[in-house]
């Protein structure tokens, strides 16, 4: 009879175990998110990452071994970025009508997001790999990881910073914009999507459908603009 240790050592070598664990952890995270009434602080990605990190630590599994299984999910980030063409295409008439205000909000939001993050971090004495990982943090994760890699940052650190940025944006946006007295749903949604990508977009859809559509648009456009803004801002402060 084969004992558990033998089965474990067989499974731990192949990609099946950690691919399954990734999906299971996300399913658990999503269940928690729904149970908590879709509150932005109960983010499913954050919960899944915490579960998997705990599991890797308990089983003494190195990250490269885990990634051999998880890479099949990770690979889909590229096609997902390409798929953002669809919501952008769908919102093209909206874009034409409000082109100038959208352009102003996009450039302001994108430059302030990357610029203030890198400037404040530099003031705290953060440099090198961590600073480069911060610059693209407002872009949607698949794009931010690609930019971070090109700038000499750490894609895994960027992934964590991007997710945290999204959660902060989702929690702050409604009280912040109420305090500023901004009532236009297009402005509210778009600014949230530019600064807080998909997690902010999900929050905007909960508040108002127009805010949600414009948030998705802001996320897609800032994915393109951050690719240009992040390297410029980083060069300015390095």
């Amino acid at each position, binding site marked *: 009879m084969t004992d558990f240790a033998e089965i474990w050592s067989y499974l731990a070598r192949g990609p099946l175990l950690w691919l399954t664990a*990734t999906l299971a952890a*996300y399913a658990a995270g999503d269940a928690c998110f729904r149970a908590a009434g879709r509150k932005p602080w109960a983010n499913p*990605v954050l919960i*899944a*990452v915490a579960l*998997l*990190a705990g599991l890797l*630590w308990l089983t003494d599994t190195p990250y490269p071994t*885990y990634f051999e299984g*998880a*890479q099949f*999910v*990770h690979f*889909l*980030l590229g*096609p*997902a*970025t*390409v*798929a953002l063409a*669809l919501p952008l295409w769908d919102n093209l008439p909206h874009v034409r009508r*409000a082109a*100038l*205000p*959208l352009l*102003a*909000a996009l450039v*302001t*939001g*994108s430059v*302030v997001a990357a610029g*203030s*993050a890198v400037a404040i971090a530099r003031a*705290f*004495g*953060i440099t090198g790999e*961590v600073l480069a990982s911060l610059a693209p943090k407002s872009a*949607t*994760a698949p*794009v931010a990881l690609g*930019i971070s890699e090109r700038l000499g940052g*750490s894609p*895994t*650190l960027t*992934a*964590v*910073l991007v997710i945290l*940025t999204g959660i902060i944006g989702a929690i*702050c946006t409604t009280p*912040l*914009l109420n305090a500023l007295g*901004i009532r236009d*749903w297009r*402005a509210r949604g778009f*600014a949230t999507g*530019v*600064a807080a990508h*998909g997690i902010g977009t999900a929050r905007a859809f909960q508040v108002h459908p*127009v805010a949600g559509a414009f948030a998705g648009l802001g996320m897609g456009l800032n994915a*393109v603009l951050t690719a240009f803004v992040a390297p410029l801002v980083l060069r300015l402060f390095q």
Partner: protein
Amino acid sequence: MIPALLTLLGAQLAGEMLTRVTGLPLPGPVLGMLILIAGFAVFPGLVTIVRPLAQGILGNLSLLFVPAGTGVVGHLGTLAGYGPALAVVLIVSTILAIGAGALAFTAVAKLMKMEPEA
């Protein structure tokens, strides 16, 4: 399913090749997204082919961040060392960006005398 997947991967592949050839600072998939939008404009039928798959992927976008996010296990030292500073950076920069972006939109909309959608 297969034509949709082929369209997404084909656009990504074209984007990857074009960034390598031209040396543009854009990640390949971002350029692939722009290529696909151009494709929609030239062949409107592509939208119907791509829609179900694209909506399926985008509906589960959060799942795709999990493998990279789990890489945090290699950065616990960095996060512990810079933790409070990084928290201040993320909170302040995100609040500034949302506020500045929304104010820029309403300021320009007011200049152009556009009706607010409130």
